[in-house]
């Protein structure tokens, strides 16, 4: 089953094209990593997939629907969240918010059960009643992942989920993402993601170069490494 289909996508904020002729498809339960330089348009692409931005040209289908129509089945972990650290809100409150939807104002037993289940899976059940202020960067990131998962999405979109986390925390988060049994699109500034069990790699710098996984096979994919990633990695061995 096709999960995500992007055809001929063009986007600009003002005069200059930020994305040009992006094309890719992703099957159900596949894992795509998006890498590329800062300002290359990765976050912009995600916002288009979420329906927050409209493309100037091109077509996007997410499980055969437009991005806006498919929001219900998307889980999103943003790059930045401006928590004011004094905000009196507990981990459980935040995770439960993933169950909100149109015309739904109150949480029921099932919502709470699902939230507990996700906290358990991410091994942060012990943090349930902690205030957001008392968490580390990695723990906060897991809370946002839990909030995205609790709505039982078919597609999980994550924008740099390992930035601002220490290396052991990064590994833990990547392990988790690898284990999720849903379609995943994960933007990362960290090329170690390419060593993961990814099905597709997109290198986005205005245009997209798509590499079909699994895993980057350095000798075989010499062209992809050297020609497409060279600026990014600044290392003839592909830096991995």
């Amino acid at each position, binding site marked *: 089953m096709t999960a995500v289909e992007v055809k001929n996508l063009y986007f600009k904020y003002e005069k200059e094209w930020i994305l040009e002729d992006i094309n890719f498809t992703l099957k159900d339960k596949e894992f795509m990593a998006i890498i590329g330089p800062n300002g290359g348009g990765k976050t912009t692409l995600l916002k288009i997939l*979420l329906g*927050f931005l409209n493309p100037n040209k091109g077509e996007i289908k997410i499980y055969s629907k437009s991005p806006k129509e498919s*929001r*219900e089945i*998307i889980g*999103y972990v*943003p790059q930045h*969240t*401006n*928590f*004011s650290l*004094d*905000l*009196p*809100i*507990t981990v459980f*409150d935040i995770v*439960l*918010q*993933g169950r*909100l*939807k*149109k015309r739904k*104002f*109150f*949480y029921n037993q099932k919502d709470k059960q699902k939230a507990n289940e996700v906290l358990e899976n991410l091994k942060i059940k012990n943090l349930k*009643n902690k*205030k957001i202020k008392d968490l580390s960067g990695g723990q906060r990131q897991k809370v946002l992942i839990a*909030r995205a998962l609790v*709505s039982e999405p078919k597609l999980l979109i994550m924008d740099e989920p390992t930035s601002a986390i220490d290396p052991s925390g990064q590994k833990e988060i990547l392990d988790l993402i690898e284990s999720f049994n849903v379609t995943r699109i994960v933007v990362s500034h960290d090329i170690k993601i390419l060593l993961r069990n990814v099905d597709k790699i997109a290198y986005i710098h205005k245009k997209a170069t798509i590499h079909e996984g699994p895993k980057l096979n350095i000798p075989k994919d010499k062209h992809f490494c050297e020609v497409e990633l060279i600026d990014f990695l600044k290392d003839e061995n592909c830096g991995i």
Partner: protein
Amino acid sequence: MWDLISNSVYASILLSIAIAIIGSLIVINKTTAITGSIAHGSFGGIGLAMFLGSSIILTTSAFTIVLAIILAFITIKFPHRKDSLIGVIWAVGMSIGIIFLSLTPGYQSDALSYLFGNILLVENKDLIFMGIIDSLILISIIFLYNRFLAMSYDREFLTLRGINANMLYTYFLILTSLTIVMSVRAIGIILILALFTIPALIAERFTKKFFSMMIVSGILGLVFMVGGIIISFYYDISPTPTIVIIAGVALILSLLKK
């Protein structure tokens, strides 16, 4: 003595409900400047009511709701310049009030009494309006508690969940503007902001859940108001500044703790 201050105590109770809920929401949503702008801008509504000879409560309500909608539009459309634009609305609203007043001779001192308010002079009809707005606020928070909480830190997320975040935000500013109208008679335009934010700022530091933050700010607001009323009654000084100074001292003390 009770006869002389009974209405002001009832007003304190009714106001503390609004302080608990709207005050806490103002703090967590960082809409202090916008609230200041609506509060000062409401002077335009008061001036207009005096010029037209219409009801102050109704005219000012309509006027501040328009201000709230304009401010919601501005802050959503021009997020990078919102602080300056909020300041403009602040000044334009006051200017409108002053122009209408200068066209309405004889009412100046009446209008000026709205700048600082006087909780000791609250009338029954003010209490009724407070009760109506309190009911609206209570119903809103029951249904929108989870949405308002999410709105305070991630509007994009609400949008993704199929909830119209801009509409919710606009509704919140309208509630804020009605809260201001219910408070001007008692608290006055200039000091409303302090009375609504100080209890919430103190409460936020000592609570883990937003619900407790609201409860604690409501209690603090009530204590500050009743304390201010008693002191100002005995020493014959203006109540609103007395209330604000008590609250300010409490805030400083709370900041000293850890």
